[in-house]
């Protein structure tokens, strides 16, 4: 049984221009100790997926799903407090703008120590336990690349630089030993050396503690070093998902291919300053979606049939939604 299992997640939000479907039948599942990458164009809905999973959306927005289970229990029918209990102990999240999710009125020390549960401490007198808490917090900060732990812990959120609050949010998400880490662009803007340290740390936790990770990122190099599986979003829909190695070698969906082709680090033959490959045009707004396949107007392979929305098809564990997938011309 997967740890997290989402089938046909749909999110409707109200905008000044009326209700729109920001997410449309998203499928996503994560097994124990699986690292899944979630990628897609800016504005395709990755952060909304993350926020739907942890319930960090305005109440009036409508989240529906055929299935949205955490270890077999339905998240959507749970009470708020039950859900919070899960996000506190088993499922940790780092949102895209971590600074905004910290409590402005408490020091960072208070916040991180609150996330350390009693079960992580040995028995002892209360002052010994206090010291243990402090020690666990400090060690965790070092692991994510914060060197000056004393200053960091004594500060309030507004007093630390942006990169520190980002690293801190990651430390806080990991300190409770979660089963699943959901991280929305956790290494964005991080110096390369720390980024690699963090990726190693996550890989190690994945091996030794079976930590599962939902890794939202634009960093294809990091993703391909880390992830077992990948889900690609475009315009609020899942367009392809499957094993990382397979998607990278033989992407079936034209958008996935365009995405992979556009990273210069993947293409070592490229002369300096040569134009990078990218899809023409831009992702449509949710208010004015094209009829049929949403990639249609930009897709190099589009044909007449594409005015009909493609169904999700499946070859073994590889899912895709396209009438004319790549590499399958004969069928």
């Amino acid at each position: 049984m997967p740890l997290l299992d989402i089938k046909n997640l749909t999110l409707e939000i109200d905008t000044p221009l009326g209700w729109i479907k920001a997410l449309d039948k998203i499928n996503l599942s994560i097994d124990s100790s699986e690292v899944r990458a979630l990628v897609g164009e800016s504005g395709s809905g990755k952060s909304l997926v993350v926020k739907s999973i942890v319930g960090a959306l305005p109440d009036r927005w409508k989240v529906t799903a055929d299935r949205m289970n955490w270890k077999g229990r339905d998240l959507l029918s749970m009470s708020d407090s039950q859900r919070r209990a899960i996000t506190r102990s088993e499922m940790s999240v780092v949102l895209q703008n971590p600074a905004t999710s910290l409590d402005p009125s408490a020091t960072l020390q208070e916040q991180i120590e609150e996330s350390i549960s009693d079960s992580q401490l040995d028995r002892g007198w209360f002052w010994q336990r206090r010291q243990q808490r402090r020690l666990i917090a400090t060690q965790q900060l070092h692991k994510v690349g914060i060197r000056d732990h004393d200053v960091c812990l004594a500060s309030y959120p507004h007093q630390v630089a942006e990169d520190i609050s980002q690293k801190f949010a990651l430390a806080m998400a990991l300190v409770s030993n979660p089963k699943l880490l959901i991280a929305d662009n956790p290494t964005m803007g991080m110096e390369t050396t720390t980024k690699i340290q963090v990726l190693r740390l996550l890989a190690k936790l994945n091996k030794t503690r079976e930590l599962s990770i939902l890794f939202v990122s634009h960093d294809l190099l990091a993703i391909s070093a880390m992830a077992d599986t990948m889900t690609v979003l475009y315009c609020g829909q899942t367009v392809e998902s499957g094993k990382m190695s397979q998607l990278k070698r033989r992407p079936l969906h034209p958008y996935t291919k365009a995405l992979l082709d556009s990273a210069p680090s993947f293409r070592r033959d490229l002369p300096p300053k040569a134009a990078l490959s990218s899809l023409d045009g831009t992702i449509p707004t949710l208010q004015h979606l094209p009829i049929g396949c949403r990639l249609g107007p930009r897709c190099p392979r589009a044909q007449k049939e594409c005015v009909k929305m493609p169904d999700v098809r499946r070859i073994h564990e590889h899912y895709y939604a396209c009438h004319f997938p790549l590499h399958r011309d004969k069928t």
Partner: protein
Amino acid sequence: MTPLLTVSNLSYCKKDKSWFGKNAGFRLDPLSFELKAGETMAIMGENGSGKSLLAKLLVGVERPNAGEILLNGEPLHHKRQRFQAIRMIFQHTKESLNPALTLGSLLEEPLILNTELDSRARKRKIEETLKLVGMLPEHQFFYRHMLSEGQRQRVAVARALILNPQVLVADEPFAALDPSVRSQTVNLLMKLQRDLGLGFIFISHNLGIVRHISDRILVLEEGKLVESGKTDVIFNWPKSDYTQRLIHAYQALISRDA
């Protein structure tokens, strides 16, 4: 030929006013460099090494303690001239995008302040610029909170380009963009450089992009310039310890992938 931008002995040192004040006690040692028209310079360095500070000094958001900045060989006297000629894309869009304004008004503001365009011409310019950065004319009616992180980043790029600057200073302009839009933006900037001779200074932790588009690199460490030179020289023969570590880390990541 006079360089587009000449920076000599620029330095910054903030006296501690309050204990916790921003940049408390941070100093930037004197540094100098030149930028030619159409040239791209990348600034690299650890978090907190002073990159954003240097960028803010260049555009005049922060005032240097000493040193000089010349544009086309002339000192910059007028604020207005400077605002128009040297534009900045801030690292965090919350510093530059007012949440209470629609994107249309955000983009119109610099046009009203710095140009003589009438409202029809402004509207046309706004729609053109939105398209240029890969957004749609209808986005002008959106507010900041309705956009994803990467879309905000693109609006920031639009806001910087709308005045046709000579120098663009961009603080992490690509970090929030997905690879495909990132490539689009990079292509756009390279085209503007070829067509208009735009000088481009950017800060980035993305060594793949740095290597691909920059002519020269500055490396900062704790407010000191530790290394500067041609891009391929620095990637192939890094001198300082810090740069060596950085390049090795990057190469490790690439080879792990292969």
